[in-house]
């Protein structure tokens, strides 16, 4: 009886993936690829290069993000200090930033010699994705008993050996799972490559856009898109087979240690690295043409009307928030159920499908799949939140991997033992232990939705823009005012996300 029930629990996740991605992809493949020479596209100049570039910069970005990210992860997980939750929010916030704004900020902060180089891309990728490491590996490290480290020390392990032989192996499942997500994000990177990389550098996503939109070759783009999705899915499935490790029960341990010298350095460096680009943004919103000016903010908040520049901030903000809340309302329960009960790893592979798919191909696929009654969902207002939820699902599930060890009692068993108490125990004792994991799931889901640009801008929206899209619009116009207003809007997005993330975190770490 339990088996049937648990199999059902992963169903919502599979439905989300099927409706938002799998089914549309099948439809567009059939329509566009059937009878088509699928190898021809790979011989077009630049296409194979794009795949190779996506692969190696994806892998290198992931490796660097993990290597650098583990330091702040350790400090944030094990030490207690004033401003800790702000720092956690600070490293999470880049997730949400539209690449246009961050691109500008990075270019302002980086030395000119790094402009338009692959290094800039790698740095930006680290900046964007470090929070995945912090929030996935963090909880695992947080629950490591200090005694374990002390035993290792008494057995002769130097700090480096403690790290390599104890902490890394313990973190390994989380490193692998966060690494896979980061890889997908970097592989499908688009805006960062364009803004920070040299001209002509392209990932497969960029090439897909070019072929579909610039050159009108939808069949070719579809071939590339399906290949990308399948490759990532296969790579992840193969990679995660080694992940079978048991997660030890994650305990909500209070970190009792205050900062020592080396951890203080890490906190300082992390804070500096993450504040600098954001400070550059804020500065640009307040400073135009060698003088301080609040015009950008005034226009943003509707306090000043500039002829020819209409940005409806309240509407954009409201739309963004509604989408984010709706997406989270879908992604979190669905993800929780799937993680709690799905013992197989293929469910984790399946939920990666939406994230791995080019927004262009996905958008086109959705368009032709749901265009006829009774499935005419193209203009449904639930479509975008659903797509956002689908994209956020892998993050939510990874954050809640801890839940797999706190499985609720057997239904049958509960019925037999007259009931409420095993469930009550689960609800009152075990579930609260998951609050940090839940918080991370919610925080990620909100952040992903608030910052989502590619799929959202591709799908048709009636009378409503989200905040990232409004920011992109502002940046596409010439003039001081649109630019500083765009910077102000990006700053606003940062603060709102930061506040949301902090409040979610605060409520979970009691």
């Amino acid at each position, binding site marked *: 009886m339990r088996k049937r029930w648990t199999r059902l629990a992963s169903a919502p996740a599979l439905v989300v993936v099927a409706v938002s991605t799998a089914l549309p992809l099948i439809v567009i493949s059939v329509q566009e690829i059937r009878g088509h020479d699928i190898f021809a596209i790979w011989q077009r100049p630049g296409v194979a290069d794009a795949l190779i570039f996506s692969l190696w910069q994806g892998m290198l970005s992931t490796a660097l993000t993990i290597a650098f990210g583990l330091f702040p992860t350790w400090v944030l997980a094990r030490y207690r200090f004033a401003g800790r939750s702000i720092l956690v929010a600070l490293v999470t916030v880049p997730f949400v930033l539209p690449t246009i704004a961050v691109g500008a900020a990075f270019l302002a902060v980086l030395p000119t010699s790094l402009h338009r180089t692959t290094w800039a891309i790698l740095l930006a990728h680290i900046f964007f994705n470090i929070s995945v490491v912090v929030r996935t590996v963090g909880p695992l490290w947080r629950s490591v*008993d200090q*005694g*374990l480290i*002390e*035993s*290792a*020390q*008494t*057995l*002769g*392990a*130097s*700090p480096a*050996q403690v790290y390599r*032989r*104890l902490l890394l*192996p*313990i973190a390994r499942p989380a490193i692998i799972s966060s690494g896979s997500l980061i890889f997908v994000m970097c592989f499908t990177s688009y805006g960062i490559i364009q803004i920070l990389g040299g001209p002509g550098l392209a990932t497969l996503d960029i090439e897909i856009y070019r072929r579909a939109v610039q050159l009108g070759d939808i069949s070719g783009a579809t071939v590339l898109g399906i290949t990308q999705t399948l490759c990532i899915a296969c790579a992840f499935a193969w990679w995660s087979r080694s992940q079978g*490790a048991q997660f*030890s029960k994650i305990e909500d341990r209070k970190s009792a240690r205050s900062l020592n010298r080396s951890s203080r350095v890490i906190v300082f460096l992390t804070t500096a690295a993450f504040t600098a680009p954001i400070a550059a943004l804020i500065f640009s919103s307040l400073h135009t043409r060698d003088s301080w000016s609040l015009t950008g903010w005034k226009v943003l908040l509707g306090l000043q009307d500039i002829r020819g520049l209409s940005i409806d901030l309240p509407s954009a903000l409201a739309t963004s928030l509604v989408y984010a809340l709706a997406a989270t309302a879908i992604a979190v329960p669905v993800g929780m159920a799937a993680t709690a009960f799905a013992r197989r790893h293929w469910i984790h592979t399946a939920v990666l499908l939406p994230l791995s798919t080019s927004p262009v191909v996905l958008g086109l696929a959705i368009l032709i799949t749901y265009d006829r009654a009774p499935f005419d969902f193209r203009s449904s207002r639930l479509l975008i939140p659903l797509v956002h939820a689908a994209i956020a699902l892998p993050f939510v599930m990874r954050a809640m991997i801890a839940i797999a060890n706190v499985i609720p009692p057997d239904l049958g068993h509960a019925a037999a033992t007259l009931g409420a108490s095993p469930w009550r125990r689960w609800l009152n004792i075990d579930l609260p232990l998951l609050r940090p994991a839940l918080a991370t799931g919610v925080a990620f889901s909100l952040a992903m939705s608030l910052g989502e640009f590619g799929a959202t801008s591709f799908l048709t929206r009636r009378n409503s823009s989200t905040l990232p899209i409004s920011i992109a619009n502002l940046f596409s116009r010439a003039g001081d005012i649109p630019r500083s207003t765009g910077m102000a809007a990006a700053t606003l997005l940062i603060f709102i996300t930061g506040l949301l993330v902090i409040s979610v975190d605060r409520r979970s770490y009691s």
Partner: protein
Amino acid sequence: MSLSIRHLSFSYNKRELLNDFSLEVASGQTMAIVGPSGSGKSTLLRLTAGLLVASHGEILINGINVSATPTHLRSVGLVFQDNQLFTHLNVFNNVAFGLKMAHQSRSAIAARCDELLNLVGLTEFSQQSVSTLSGGQAKRVALARALAPKPQVLLLDEPLTGLDDELHDRLATDLRQILQTSKTTALLVTHDLAEARTIADTITHLQ
């Protein structure tokens, strides 16, 4: 491998846990420190291991002042009250851990681990996962692990507390035998005087 603690003082949060404490343990001898909880016994062990730093006093091992030496260089083994076994490693690899830290060869590690597993009577459990061990078995693994790198001094924190009576007595005798056979200089803390009498050569009281 004598252990000499001289005039050790330690305070935490304005509370004085140890004041001018001294003791001597001769090489190969086992000393037990008996006292009620809160008397600073565990603190003493942690100071000796280097996990805490004393405000006054010094610790000498074999005549050498190790007060400023970091834990991992001190060659002091510690068996924790809750064992602290590495759950991501099996029994063999737990025992082998200290040897790997010392970069010993595969064969040397294998030989030493076999020797120790034999000593603690757990040879058949070599490949087993540590999460499936019973309380007594886990304690033995922790002991074997601490002894493997041949520490100059072995520290034991309430080694038998929490184990049921039958196990308790059996392990107490076994522990004495293991310590004598391996000729290890040992310092154990406990609140149980009877336990101390069974295992140790000398007993000191702590208020």
